[in-house]
C-alpha cells in the first residue's frame, strides 16, 4: 500500500466541531492535583489512557537541547521493579500497547489495553512505574544517546528535516521554540544521568500532569486508575510559563544547498496561540488558502494548474505560545523559482482579497459537515481529551466549535490574516534551490 494520491494533510488545527450529542466529558482532579478528563464508553472492551506533562522541548536548557526528549524516552526503559526488558513484555503479555508523544509543549505516554481488570491493571501498573520511578540506568543512557545521535546525523542528510529545522530556528530566534525537539548532536552528547534525574524531578509532578481516559470502565474505576498514576508523583507546582514569542520584524531568506532532486520550501512566521481570539477566522481562512486539500488555492494554483508539486499546503499550528504558520511545497529543482513565486503570489492575493463567499461556504461546509468523523473512534476522542486537558480548554470546547466556525465572516478572515501574516515578516527557507537543468 504505497502511493496515496496526496500526502496526508497537516491537520494541526484539527480539534473538532460538534454536532454529535453524547461526548460527555467528565472532569476532576486527583488528591495530588492531577487533572483528569474522562469519557465513559462501553461499546468495545478496551481502554485508552494518556498522560501529558508540560515537559516538552521548550523546557530544554539550550546547552543541553534534547534533554526533555531523552528523559521521556529513558523513562520507559526501566522503572521501579521493572527491568528494561520487563516493560515491553508485561505490556505485550496482556496485549497492551505503550506509545508516546513529544513536542515543544507536551511530553507524554499513551496506553491502549483491553479493559478487563487483569489486563488494564497490569498495563497501568507498568505505566505508573514509568512515571514515578524511572531508573535512568547509565548503560542504557549511553546506548540511547548513541542511537539518538545516529538518528540526528541521518536526519541531517534529509532536505525536509534540514529545512524544517532552519525554518524553526529562523522564526523563533532565541525563544525556546527554536530548539530542535530531539536536540543536536553536540548537546545530546553532553547530557548525563543527573540531568535526566533533575529534569524528571522538576517536571513529572502531579500538578503538571493531565490524564485523559477513554473507554470501557466506570467513573469509580477511572478515579482509581488516575489516582494510581498520580500517587507516585510529588504534587509539585504548576510549571513556569513559556515566555511569549517576540514578533519577527523583518524576515530573511536562506537557501541551503542540497543534492536532492527537489527543492523544499518553508515560508512563514509565528502565527497562532492555542487559545487565540482569532483561532476560528485563521483556521477557516487557512482552509481556503492551503489547508483544504484540493479545495485550497495553493493546491489549485501549484499542483492542479501547473503540475509543479505533489504536496503543497499551509497550516497554523496552535501552541501554548505562538505556534508556526507555514507554507510548504516540494518541486523539481529547475522549477524552484516558479513554484516559490507562485506560492508567494497566492498568499499576497489572499491577503488582498480574502476568500470569496463561495470559498468560505465550501470551507464551512467541509469543516462542519466533517465533524462526526473527527470523533468516530476511541482513539480520536482520546486525542481531543488530551488537548482539552493539557491546554485547559473549556469542557464545552467541542460543543461550541460548530457555531464558532459558522460565525466566521470574510471580513473576520481578512482582518485576522492581515494582522498575523505580514509578508515582510516572513522567513523563507529553501533547501536545494533553483537549477537550470535537473541534477544528475
Amino acid at each position, binding site marked *: *500500500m*504505497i502511493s496515496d*494520491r496526496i500526502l496526508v494533510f497537516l491537520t494541526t488545527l484539527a480539534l473538532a466541531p460538534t454536532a454529535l450529542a453524547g461526548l460527555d466529558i467528565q472532569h476532576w482532579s486527583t488528591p495530588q492535583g492531577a487533572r483528569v478528563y474522562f469519557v465513559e464508553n462501553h461499546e*468495545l*472492551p478496551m481502554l485508552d489512557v494518556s498522560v501529558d506533562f508540560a515537559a516538552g522541548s521548550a523546557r530544554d536548557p539550550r546547552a543541553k537541547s534534547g534533554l526533555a526528549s531523552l528523559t521521556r524516552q529513558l523513562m520507559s526503559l526501566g522503572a521501579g521493579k521493572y527491568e528494561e526488558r520487563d516493560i*515491553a*513484555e508485561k*505490556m*505485550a*503479555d496482556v*496485549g497492551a*500497547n505503550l506509545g508516546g508523544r513529544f513536542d515543544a509543549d507536551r511530553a507524554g505516554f499513551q496506553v*491502549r489495553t*483491553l479493559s478487563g481488570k487483569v489486563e488494564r491493571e497490569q498495563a497501568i501498573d507498568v505505566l505508573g512505574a514509568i512515571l514515578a520511578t524511572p531508573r535512568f540506568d547509565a548503560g542504557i543512557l549511553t546506548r540511547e544517546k*548513541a*542511537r539518538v*545521535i*545516529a*538518528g540526528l*546525523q541521518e536526519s541531517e*542528510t534529509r532536505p525536509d528535516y534540514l529545512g524544517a529545522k532552519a525554518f524553526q530556528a529562523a522564526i523563533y530566534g532565541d525563544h525556546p521554540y527554536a530548539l530542535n525537539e530531539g536536540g543536536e548532536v553536540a548537546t545530546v552528547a553532553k547530557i548525563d544521568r543527573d540531568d535526566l534525574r533533575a529534569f524528571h524531578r522538576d517536571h513529572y509532578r502531579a500538578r503538571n500532569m493531565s490524564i485523559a481516559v477513554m473507554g470501557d470502565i466506570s467513573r469509580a474505576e477511572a478515579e482509581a486508575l488516575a489516582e494510581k498514576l498520580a500517587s507516585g508523583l510529588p504534587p509539585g507546582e504548576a510549571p513556569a510559563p513559556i515566555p511569549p514569542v517576540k514578533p519577527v520584524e523583518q524576515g*530573511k*531568506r*536562506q*537557501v*541551503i544547498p*542540497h*543534492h*536532492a*532532486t527537489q527543492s523544499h520550501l518553508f515560508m512563514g512566521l509565528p502565527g497562532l496561540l492555542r487559545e487565540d481570539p482569532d483561532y476560528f477566522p485563521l483556521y477557516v481562512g487557512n482552509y481556503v488558502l492551503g489547508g483544504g486539500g*484540493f479545495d485550497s488555492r495553493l493546491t489549485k494554483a501549484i*499542483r*492542479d494548474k501547473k*503540475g*509543479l*508539486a*505533489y*504536496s503543497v499546503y499551509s497550516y497554523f499550528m496552535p501552541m501554548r505560545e505562538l505556534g508556526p504558520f507555514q507554507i510548504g511545497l*516540494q*518541486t*523539481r*529543482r529547475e522549477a*524552484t523559482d516558479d513554484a516559490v513565486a507562485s506560492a508567494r503570489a497566492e498568499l499576497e492575493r489572499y491577503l488582498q482579497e480574502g476568500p470569496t463567499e463561495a470559498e468560505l461556504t*465550501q470551507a464551512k*461546509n*467541509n*469543516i*462542519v*459537515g*466533517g465533524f*462526526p*468523523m473527527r*470523533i468516530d*473512534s476511541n*482513539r480520536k476522542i482520546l486525542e481531543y481529551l488530551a488537548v482539552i486537558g493539557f491546554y485547559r480548554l473549556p469542557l464545552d470546547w467541542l460543543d461550541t466549535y460548530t457555531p464558532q466556525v459558522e460565525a466566521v465572516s470574510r471580513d473576520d478572515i481578512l482582518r485576522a490574516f492581515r494582522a498575523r501574516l505580514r509578508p515582510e515578516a*516572513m522567513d*523563507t527557507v529553501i533547501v536545494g*534551490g*533553483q*537549477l537550470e537543468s535537473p541534477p544528475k
Partner: protein
Amino acid sequence: MKRLLFVLSIAVTTVAHAEIVERTLDNGMRVIIKTDRRAPVAVSQVWYRAGSTDEFNGSTGVAHVLEHMMFKGTHEVPAGEFSRRIAAAGGRENAFTSRDHTAYFQTLQKDRLELALKLEADRMANLNLSADEFAKEIQVVMEERRLRTEDNPQARLYEGLMATVFQAHPYRRPIIGWMDDLKNMHVDDARDWYQRWYAPNNATLVVAGDVDPARVLAWAEQYFGPISARDLPQRKPQNEPEQNGVRQVVVKAPAKLPVIALAWHAPRLLDPETDSDPYALEILAGVLDGHASARLNQSLVREQQLATEASAGYDGVSRGPALFMVDATPAEGHTVAAVEAALKQEIARIVRDGVGEQELARVKAQVLASQVYQQDSLFYQAMLIGEWTTAGLDYRARDTRFRKLKEVTPEQVREVAAKYLVDDHLTVARLDPQPMDTKPARRGFGGRHDF
C-alpha cells in the same frame, strides 16, 4: 518502505452488533456491507483488482497514474469537481494504489453516503482522460516519485531489493513506476489501462458504518447496476522460478547510515482453512519483532548494541508471492557484515533451540488484543475486507485465520524458520551511504526577501 508492517493485526472481528451482507450484482460487481453503529458515519471503498502487478514493461506506474486521473473529470463531472462535491458534503476522500489493487474511498456522515456511490459509479464508466489534464498530472506524479523515492535512500534500497528478489514476477517493479517510464508515458497508456480494468466485474464495493444494508444495496444497484460487464484480459501467473543461491544488491545513495535488508521467498496464504505455514510465519515475525523486547531489538539493539534499529515482517495476504523480511541499521563502528551475521544468528537460534511457550503466548496475546483494537477504526475494518477480497481470499475466513494463529505451536515456528529462511532463497540488500554533494545552488546562501 524500509519497514514492512507487522500484520498480525489482521485478525477477526467478532463485535456482536456487526453484521455483514454481501451480494453480487448482475454485472459481476461485488458489494459487501458491514454495519457498525458506533458513530453516525459511513465509509465507502471501491476496490479494483488491478495494481502494478498487472502492468507491462515500458508503462510501469500506469495503475497509479490512472488513480490520479480518476479525479480529473468525467463527461458530467468536470475535473476537480469530484473532490469539491465530497468536501462540500463534509467528506474525506483519497485513493491508493498497491501491487495488487487500486482503491478509492470516502468517509462521510451516514446520510451522505449516496453521493459517494453516485460519483464512484460515474467515474467507473465515464472518465474523460483528456490529454491536457494528463500532461499536468504526469508532472505531479513525477514530483511524487522524486519525493517518495528519488530523494529517499531507504526507498531506493527497497526498490533495488524488490528488483533483485523477483526476476520474473512483476512484483519486481515499483508501484509508482520507473522514472523513465513516467517520462515516456502517454495518455493512451492511461486510456488503455482504464479500458482493460475499470469494469464492474473487476470491482468490489465495500461499505462500512451506520447504514441500512438494504438501502445501500438499492443504491449500488441503481448506480453501478447499469454499467456493463466487460471481458477482462487474461491474467498470466508469471510465477517466479525457484531461486537457487543467495543474491546480493548494493544501492549507493547520499545518506549517513547504512542499512541491511534480508528477504526470503515465503508462501502466501492460499487456503485459510488448510494452510498452516503462513500462520507460523506471522507468529515468527512476532517472535522476532512483535514488541520492544522481542528478539531482534532485545538482542541486536539492546544487548549486543550492534544496531540502532532492527525489524522483521511478513505479510501473507497478497495476489502474488510473499516474502519474509528482516532489516537493521548498523550502530556506529559496526559493519553491515557484522549486523547481517547477527540477524542470521537470531534466526539460526530459533532453528536450533525453538521458541518458548511464554514467548509464543505473548505474541498470541497481542493477536487477541489487536482483534479488539481494530474494531475502533471503521476505515480499517472496510480495508481488511477489501484486501482479502482482492487477494482472492474469502474475508469470512478471517475468523478461521484467528483460530489458526492461536493453534500455532513452538515446533511449527521452528519448522518454518528452518524451511524458508535458507540462504538459497535469500536476497541481501545493502544501502551503501555516500557523502552528501552540496554544490551551492545558483543564488547561494542568504540575502533578504526579493519576491
